[in-house]
């Protein structure tokens, strides 16, 4: 009995001594859709940011302090997200990475901004998020108006005279379709079809039949990859051969799995460059490290963009030797120039938007691989 007590006392003594020895950790939050219909994107975000955190700690942490990641699930739902953001602010985080959907991010922006927490969103491309004059909001993904410009040029490049635009009624998808629609109309391109499908369904034959009846030369779908895959597959089943184009929410290898190689071949979409197309040694090393830890290469560009969010925060903390939101903001806006991200060079403008031409055009080849187009 006595011995047990001694052991217990020893154990208690050790465990209470441990935190005193190490410095107070710097807490960084991650807000991601770990459950719900975007769960696959959220899980990928978590993997990337956890890998970055582990690497940062292996290098000795930030400012000599270990980094602690606080992960909150937003469920892909604005209400859940606002509660999660409140929990993050009370847990004492310096910055928050995330989140994915634009409407979800919008629900958290003011909460984090008022609490003086830097937010770096990774997938929220809606234009209005950075038009509110918020001081602490940044994003590593581009904006829909830039994507709209690139999309409209791509449509003109394929010399289409009858264009169909299809969205899925989400804030992102409709916003992008509206951008493209306005640009095409200004350039006198005939938009013969503009409508929305209901996401999460399996059968899109009714929409495809109607689309076909409108007789377009090209169809631009601004939604997400699960629906895009089904559209391509069912289009092939119908024996319809019109070319399909898509936006950056389609950049996921599962597209080819869902559609099948034959149906996906020739499909073109816009996206920031995927990690394997970045010819920097850092990006290659990162893909290798990711592969080693998780047994597969990163499949979602948004997971990598979340990882880049972590890296710009880490860089800002190290450069300013501070964890104060205003100091970090000043550095991100004024000090950070052409930071070598895993998704290309990163700089921010005063609005918090990433600057530079990010979008590339990808095409699915016969093997189902995404080929960067010149």
């Amino acid at each position: 009995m006595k011995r047990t007590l001694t052991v217990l006392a020893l154990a208690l003594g050790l465990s209470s001594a441990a935190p005193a020895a190490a410095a107070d950790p710097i807490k960084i939050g991650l807000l991601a859709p770990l459950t719900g219909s975007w769960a696959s994107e959220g899980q990928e975000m978590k993997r990337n940011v956890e890998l970055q955190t582990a690497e940062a700690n292996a290098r000795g942490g930030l400012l000599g302090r270990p980094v602690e990641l606080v992960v909150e699930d937003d469920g892909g739902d604005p209400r859940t997200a606002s509660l999660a953001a409140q929990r993050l602010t009370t847990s004492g985080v310096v910055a928050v990475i995330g989140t994915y959907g634009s409407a979800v991010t919008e629900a958290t922006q003011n909460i984090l901004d008022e609490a003086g927490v830097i937010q770096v969103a990774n997938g929220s491309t809606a234009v209005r998020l950075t038009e509110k004059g918020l001081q602490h909001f940044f994003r590593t993904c581009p904006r829909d108006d830039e994507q709209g410009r690139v999309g409209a040029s791509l449509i003109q490049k394929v010399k289409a005279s009858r264009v169909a635009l299809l969205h899925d009624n989400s804030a992102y998808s409709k916003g992008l379709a509206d951008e493209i629609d306005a640009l095409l109309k200004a350039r006198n391109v005939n938009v013969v079809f503009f409508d929305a499908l209901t996401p999460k369904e399996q059968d899109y034959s009714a929409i495809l039949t109607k689309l076909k009846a409108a007789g377009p030369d090209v169809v631009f779908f601004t939604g997400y990859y699960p629906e895009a895959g089904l559209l391509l597959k069912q289009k092939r089943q119908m024996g319809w051969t019109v070319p399909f184009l898509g936006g950056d929410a389609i950049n996921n290898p599962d597209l080819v799995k869902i559609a099948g190689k034959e149906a996906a071949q020739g499909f073109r979409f816009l996206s920031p460059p995927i990690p394997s197309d970045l010819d920097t040694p850092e990006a290659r090393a990162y893909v290798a490290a990711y592969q080693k830890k998780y047994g597969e290469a990163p499949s979602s560009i948004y997971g990598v963009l979340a990882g880049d969010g972590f890296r710009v925060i880490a860089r800002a903390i190290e450069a300013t030797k501070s964890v104060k939101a205003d100091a970090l903001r000043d550095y991100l806006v004024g000090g950070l120039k052409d930071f070598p991200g895993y998704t290309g060079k990163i700089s921010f403008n005063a609005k918090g938007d990433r600057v530079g031409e990010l979008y590339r055009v990808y095409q699915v080849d016969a093997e189902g691989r995404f080929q960067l187009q010149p």
Partner: protein
Amino acid sequence: MQFFEQLVNGLAVGSIYALIALGYTMVYGVLKLINFAHGDLFTYGAYLGMTLLASLALQDRLGVGLGLLLLALMVMGLVAVIGVVLERVAYRPVRNSPRLSAVVSALGASVFLQNALMLIYGARYQVFPDLLPQTALDIFGLHVPLLRIAVVLISVAMMAVLVLFVQRTRLGAAIRATAIDPSAAQLMGIDVNRVIRLVFVIGPALGGAAGLLVGLTYGQISFTMGWIYGMKAFTAAILGGIGNIPGAMVGGLLLGVVEALGAAYLSVAWKDAIAFLVLILILIVRPSGLLGERVADKV
């Protein structure tokens, strides 16, 4: 021409709704309970089908036709087992409690089943192997994929067997008697618990078969797919008159066709709104659904 193509599109979607709606309506018939976990049983059918397809490879050993038939029977059996366990664990303990307890229990079961699936298979979309021919039929300029027609025929055949079973066999009579009045049925010597168990075999088996059909036809499945199909099938059951078996079939097919035609001639984005508008109009004229019977209030 678009009209007939859309009609076939609608019938294919509607026959899936109808198969799932049967599960809602049969459970409601005997228990006066909406089994909110039924949509998830449908998802389990799809996932079990995918797993068995990949692990047993029956289609390679026995040929596609016989292999798929055997696979369908196994999937229906397994989902039926889940249904029976669900009834025993989630519904029987609260059968005599206020009705709200059963509804909460059903919602809880749904959340549990859905997230269990996510933990087992992960959150990513899963894909069925391409087994079935993607050919289409060209008749009189109509272009109809063969798979769609097969889905409609298989569903209608299963529903016909069910109707024969319920109308012509002693067990079917027991189900009908329990639906009319459980306590009177018990007094007449019917084992009500056995009838309820039977309903939780048939409903989930049909739902599981629908899941397998969706997986084979569309290829892509996700752990949340049961939600939207469940909602639509529940709507179809109400439309046809909840508790009424032919009503669920008519409701499902009608809902599918209204959706397709609404998408074709009005607006794709408003397709669901149009379908629900039709539901509301029908319920205003016939509050108990298309084939639902008017039951006088018990005094």
